[in-house]
């Protein structure tokens, strides 16, 4: 099933048509997200999800010719979101891992 991820609390999202701008309440940084990152962050804002959940969601959202790369795509998006601190990986106890 892979690791479990969650959005950090208090993320603010501005939806501007094809792109969204999100506010990280911990760093006060703003980030522009593409539609895939927006979808993943939206899912993780609602509840924690496993990497497999994210892969499935992306698989459904991607065009047919892109579906083969859904797994790699999910990993890349999760890494990007984690690198800017918008999501965290959860440990077995459900708390953010260090």
């Amino acid at each position, binding site marked *: 099933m892979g690791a479990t991820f969650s959005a950090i609390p208090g993320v*603010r999202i*501005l939806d*501007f048509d094809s*792109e969204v*701008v999100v*506010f990280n309440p911990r760093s*006060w940084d*703003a980030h522009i997200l593409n539609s895939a990152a927006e979808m993943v962050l939206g899912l993780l804002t609602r509840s924690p999800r496993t990497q497999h959940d994210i892969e499935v969601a992306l698989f459904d959202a991607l065009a047919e010719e892109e579906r083969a790369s859904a797994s790699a795509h999910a990993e890349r998006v999760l890494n990007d979101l984690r690198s800017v601190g918008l999501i965290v990986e959860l440990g077995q106890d459900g708390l953010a891992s260090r």
Partner: protein
Amino acid sequence: MRVAEITDAGVRERLAAKGLTIDCGAAVVRIQSDVPELAAMLRLLYGAFQIEPDDVVTDASVMLRLARGSRRVFRPQIELWLDGSRPFERYPRDTPLPLVEWGVNFALAKRLHCYLLLHSGVVEMGGRAVVIPAMPGSGKSTLTVALSQRGFRLLSDEFGVVRLSDSRLLPLLRPAALKNESIDVISRFAPDAILGPRFPKTRKGTVAHLALDASTVDERHTPAQPAVVVFPRYDPTVEFELDSVPKARAFGRLAVNSFNYEVLGPDAFDALGRLVALSDCYELRYSDLDRAIDAITLFVRRADSATTLEEPAS
């Protein structure tokens, strides 16, 4: 009483005593100085502004003083004091007005954190604001001033003052600073405009200031709803080119171009997000001022017909 209603000598006396206190709209500013030639310059450029009582609380206090010491005879210098401290080295005496104006801008950018401050010109027509963000050399001041000479009301040539509660733009009125070629451009474009003296030796080249008229000053507390954001770039090789800017990108460019976005954090994010959501955003490359003004006028009218104005927040 307006500044123009007292004499140069009267302005000089005020500057040397408790100062000249001016309500600029979003901020109240006090200027003190013992530099005698400054009085006539301020009287010309701030003539339409009301003089506020000496005991009014100010948002920025700027003092320009003749430097003491032996160098004053051979190479006269002046000192800029902001809110009681002197944060910079002394300056040559020959640019007192640009120094005061720059000092006021510096103080406001450092202090006015009850608002989101964008580095931009702002004009208004029919209650709709046009935000004109600046990059150096963009022609922001030229375009802002030119619009103010063609039916738009000037809110500021330097600060986009965004009210945090509703993202409306507030006036922060000061004499508009024109630099280098833009001085002659505006002189030709609006021959009746009142410009102050030219100062050729500033850090930004030659600078001159535009005096504001009484009707603009009298509207200094009337806000405007954001409607259009135009990122201008003066380009002598292009007569007129216009592109739409995606709102998320416009948000990023405005945030980077803000004086205090990082100070305000979530409040700035919300206020700027609201401003961008309410605005159509464009990038404009131009050398033909009239065409640029026609296009911006059209954008504002289009925004006017697309939505109705909300009641201003009390």
